[in-house]
């Protein structure tokens, strides 16, 4: 009954935000071109890296493309859901309309992180999937059931981790209204996710496994594609993802408590 209500509300969210975005049609077209150019650019850069001896960090070009594909999907998801909603929450806080959200008989985290959608990110997601299918073909990966389910699990976990990081930053807007710069820092770090983590030096690898869990976001799913991943890594990713999700929820509730005791 409750789930049905949330589904119904989400359908409305989808409809209203698609309708608002369609008010700016040229914008969508430009964003689509941007997504395509961006993928071409990344592959171009990757090809430069492989000019030397055909390996970086022990990965072949065809294998590194898998990382690229997963990154593109995740980036598409970020652009479709996380980024527009962050823009929205900043607006809510700056204009003081968060009050309206809090007074709605619906979960505020649900409302705030899913209200908006940017359709031009869809293409990026599709491009990422095409690239992945292409990689499955050139790497001759067997589409077994266990492979499909493991890759599904790991990619979902990546999405959860990524969502939690974004939502965490969105939440901090309650204290610091300007979070654009923090977002820029995050984006520049996430940029690393385009490349196999092994191609970096040891210290950076440690940094990107612990502080910003890029290792979990793109590397483990790619390893699943190559059949390299150990079970414990996948289990660890599931645990990390749940910890991130729970923390983001707790942090939001904490922030709301602060908001309602300090705002005026």
């Amino acid at each position, binding site marked *: 009954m409750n789930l049905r209500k949330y589904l119904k509300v989400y359908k409305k969210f989808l409809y209203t935000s698609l309708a608002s975005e369609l008010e*700016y049609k*040229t*914008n969508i077209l*430009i*964003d689509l*071109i*941007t997504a395509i*150019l*961006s993928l071409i*650019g*990344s592959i*171009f*850069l990757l*090809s*430069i*890296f492989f*000019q*030397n*001896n055909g*390996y*970086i*960090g022990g990965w072949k070009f065809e294998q590194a493309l898998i990382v690229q594909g997963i990154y593109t999907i995740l980036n598409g998801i970020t652009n479709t859901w996380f980024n527009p909603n962050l823009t929205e929450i900043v607006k809510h806080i700056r204009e003081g309309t968060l009050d309206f959200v809090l007074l709605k008989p619906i979960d505020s985290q649900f409302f705030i992180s899913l209200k908006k959608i940017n359709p031009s990110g869809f293409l990026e997601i599709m491009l990422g999937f095409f690239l992945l299918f292409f990689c499955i073909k050139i790497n001759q990966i067997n589409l077994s059931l266990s492979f499909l389910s493991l890759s599904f699990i790991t990619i979902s976990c990546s999405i959860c981790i990524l969502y939690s990081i974004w939502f965490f930053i969105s939440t901090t807007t309650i204290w610091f209204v*300007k979070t*654009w*710069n*923090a977002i*820029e*820092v995050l*984006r*520049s770090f996430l*940029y*690393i996710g385009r*490349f196999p983590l092994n*191609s*970096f*030096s040891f210290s*950076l690898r440690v940094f990107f496994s612990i502080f910003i869990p890029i290792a979990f976001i793109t590397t483990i799913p790619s390893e699943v594609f190559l059949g390299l991943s150990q079970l414990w890594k996948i289990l660890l990713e599931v645990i990390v993802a749940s910890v991130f999700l729970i923390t983001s929820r707790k942090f939001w509730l904490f922030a709301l408590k602060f908001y309602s005791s300090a705002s005026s």
Partner: protein
Amino acid sequence: MIFNLFNRKIFTLLKVQYSNMLEYRVEIALWAISGIIPFFMLNIWTNNNLNESINISDVMLSRYFLCAFFVRQFSVVWVVFSFEEDSLMGKVSPYLIQPLNPFFRYFAQHLAEQITRFPFALIIAFFFFIFNPESIWIPNLGILLLSIVSTFLSFLIQFLIQSIVACLCFWTEKASSIERMLFIPTLFLSGLLAPVVSFPEYVKSWIYLTPFPYLIDFPANLLSGNETNISRGLSMQIIWIFLLFPLFKKIWIEGTKKYTAMGS
């Protein structure tokens, strides 16, 4: 006389914007951090010995990427975003009444931020040298001056391009998506992620005719002491400025005409 007046205006604007920028130290520090992508790229290059194929030593390559970081820090432009926000908030009309092209205001804003950013960039460079002590070098004064000039010219080119895009705000509501599209070739072709020498021949044959390599690759090569064609670089930068400036003036005049005709 007129020139004098002009100077005084710019000077006052600079002073105001600088004190304004000092208020946002944290954000500017974050901005500086978000520019560290070149260092990640350097890490990939040296960790995989990719520089073997382009005959640049590790030390020279690390100097190159450090300089790329510096050039980027002092040539980054965001006038489209400021202008779009201002026009959405209805601030453009009062600017149009003032006897000064509003782009001078943004110009001063950018310069002021560059000054504020300088110490943060130095701190990052300091840490860079701690980790890579062998790459410390002192460029001679002439080269330093020349590279400051070429960095400023690179900033001017980017400022002009973005101002032209910003003027499109008069026609479309969201010019920033056009800027995001233009940013993609800037990112991949300017030398921020890989020096232009490493590009494949089929790209190198035409890229020197575009403005991109003169945005980061040329000033960074100049400053780091890597091989580059100084006279060609500087003259191409100046040519591009001379091509872009009349275009900006034209589109500005057309845009304001359209704006005042609409009466909104």
